[in-house]
């Protein structure tokens, strides 16, 4: 789960991580009022859940209230990678002496929380990672110790010489780690962390993502979720035990397992087709889940053919077949379906399907080719 910058800044404030003053604004009037109250140079920042807003013109510096209003007019309502900007943050534009990058994330290799720090902050950190990997310090945090004073200080000394800055950074790093742990985050990032003219460290931009698997115990985080329309559909699917991502093709896919679902899409594309979605019905599927999945596929008007690819393991093929028959009885399905079933209880599943005269194919490649043939024949 992702949250907006303004929400991350609020969490930082709760943890006493220093952040410049700011006001969240939904209208131009609010922008004007905020700029007037802050009463100095401000930065107006689009609040969207996609990256690259800076390049898209979603962040503007304003020296006067008038400039802030102009910036607000330009940014509010603009489109950034398909997201409409509904709100902006008007924030104190502090004097910046130098910019740093610091972030925490999960590291698969050390199986721990990884602290990353670089004196080359402010720019695309991924570029630095590629071109000058040594410029990014990566320190795995021992989960039994957490972020100790000495470890935070050790990282701070990699960025700063001045002991006053080291002490400020040590404090910030410990709080970032605590925030990460307390909220079951998957990313806590400050980019840039800056030295202001008063030799004070401040977090100028904050990013936080959270572990979806842990949201059940993070009620105060979960309520921050502001899903887009597409995401709402994905979340509704998730509640039915389905993982759904809408794409732009016309072959609706229903598959069990993420890897097999990706491979199915790969095979469709390989033979020249276009998948309309990623849809993983997961393990222990009940007939109900299959009905929900069919509903979801039929709700996308782009879908012209449905390809079902099931390899039973924890999923039972008879459950899938029964669900499919139920769905066909309940829904008006007026498009062709191609079915491939194997694995647990496959014989029984195939028998049920055959009874209803639905087309069955023997392999994934055949299924993909047949689906493409059907689309082209429409």
């Amino acid at each position, binding site marked *: 789960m992702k949250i907006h910058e303004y929400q991350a800044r609020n969490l930082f404030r709760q943890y006493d991580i220093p952040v410049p003053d700011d006001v969240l604004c939904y209208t131009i009037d609010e922008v004007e009022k905020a700029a007037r109250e802050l009463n100095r140079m401000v930065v107006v920042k689009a609040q969207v859940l996609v990256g690259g807003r800076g390049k898209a013109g979603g962040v503007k510096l304003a020296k006067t209230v008038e400039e802030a209003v102009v910036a607000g007019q330009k940014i509010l309502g603009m489109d950034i990678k398909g997201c409409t900007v509904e709100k902006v943050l008007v924030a104190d534009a502090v004097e910046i002496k130098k910019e740093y990058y610091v972030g925490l994330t999960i590291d*698969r290799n050390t199986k721990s929380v990884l602290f990353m720090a670089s004196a080359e902050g402010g720019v695309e950190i991924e570029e630095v990672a590629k071109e000058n990997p040594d410029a990014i310090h990566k320190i795995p945090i021992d989960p039994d110790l957490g972020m100790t004073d000495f470890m935070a200080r050790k990282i701070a000394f990699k960025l700063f010489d001045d002991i006053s800055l080291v002490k400020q950074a040590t404090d910030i790093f410990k709080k970032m780690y605590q925030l990460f742990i307390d909220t*079951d985050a998957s990313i806590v990032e400050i980019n840039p962390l800056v030295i202001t003219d008063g030799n004070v460290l401040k977090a100028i931009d904050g990013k936080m993502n959270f*572990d979806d698997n842990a949201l059940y115990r993070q009620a105060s985080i979960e309520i921050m979720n502001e899903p887009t329309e597409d995401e709402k559909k994905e979340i509704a699917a998730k509640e039915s035990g389905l993982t759904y991502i809408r794409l732009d093709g016309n072959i609706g896919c229903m598959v069990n397992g993420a890897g097999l679902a990706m491979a199915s899409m*790969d095979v469709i594309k390989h033979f020249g087709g276009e998948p309309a979605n990623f849809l993983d019905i997961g*393990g222990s599927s009940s007939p109900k889940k299959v009905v929900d999945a069919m509903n979801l596929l039929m709700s996308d008007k782009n879908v012209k053919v449905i390809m079902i690819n099931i*390899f039973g*393991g924890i999923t039972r093929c008879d459950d899938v077949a029964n669900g499919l028959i139920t769905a066909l009885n309940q829904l008006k399905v007026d498009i062709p379906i191609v079915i491939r079933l194997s*694995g*647990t209880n496959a014989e029984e599943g195939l028998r049920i399907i055959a009874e209803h005269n639905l087309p069955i194919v023997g392999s994934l490649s055949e299924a993909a080719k047949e689906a493409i043939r059907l689309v082209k024949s429409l």
Partner: protein
Amino acid sequence: MSILINKDTKVLVQGITGRDGSFHTGKMVAYGTKIVAGVSPGKGGQLVHNVPVFNSVEDAVNATGATVSVIFIPAPYAADAILEAAEGGIKLVVCISEGVPTLDMVKATAYLKKKGVELIGANCPGLITPEESMIGILPVNIFKKGNVGLMSRSGTLTYLMVSLLTQNGLGQSTCVGIGGDPVSGLYYQELLERFENDPETEAIVLIGEIGGDAEERAAQYIKEHVTKPVVAFIAGQTAPQGKRMGHAGAIISSGSGTAEEKIAAFEAIGVPVARLPVEVPALVKKALDERKK
């Protein structure tokens, strides 16, 4: 021979009285897996599929000598079950549960390391040494005893690959579903090492997917340590950037972790990569033929 498990491996099931635990215990018992005990607090003394149930892992291990545990416990309690297994004397834990919070796994894996206990999963289908022992939720009918070792981050894709291998007369030594979570147990490297040292394994199939750099690291390891032929497949070749594809680990971020990069990493060290699943058996056969020469 095989890796990790064989016909003598004594297994206990944590969460044996639950819906999934009970169902798959039946399947494992039917396959011949030595399921010697189940654990379900408060249900000690009961029988499930004729398997005795204990209140704790410690009790079960003391009574039966089980060395492997397989976990069917709801996600919020799964990490605690892993810890209990490790503390109770289990040497290999196989965690099937899906949706375990990542930080729970960070703590659990640190503890397992301290205890010298191995883990497969969480969020994995388990592992099988065909015709000897299946631990997890794998559909057993597709497997066949043989000399191909297989490891995969994806469950159902594994089944597809295995059925293709079996259809083509290529049996398996051991197949391991390692799971797709951000933090999990045994990974490509550790399994490659075991397959390399297993006399029965003649070729290795590695099934990867987009996200992370595990496949790149595996390629590096193969280059340095593996003499047996390896064939790879990477799922997600056509996945759009930045979209989350069901596995928490499968995020393409900023041009790294893509299928192209992973395919390139393997091909650079001479590991053939199938573009379609159906191409895998032929590549394995070719590798085995070359090895025989």
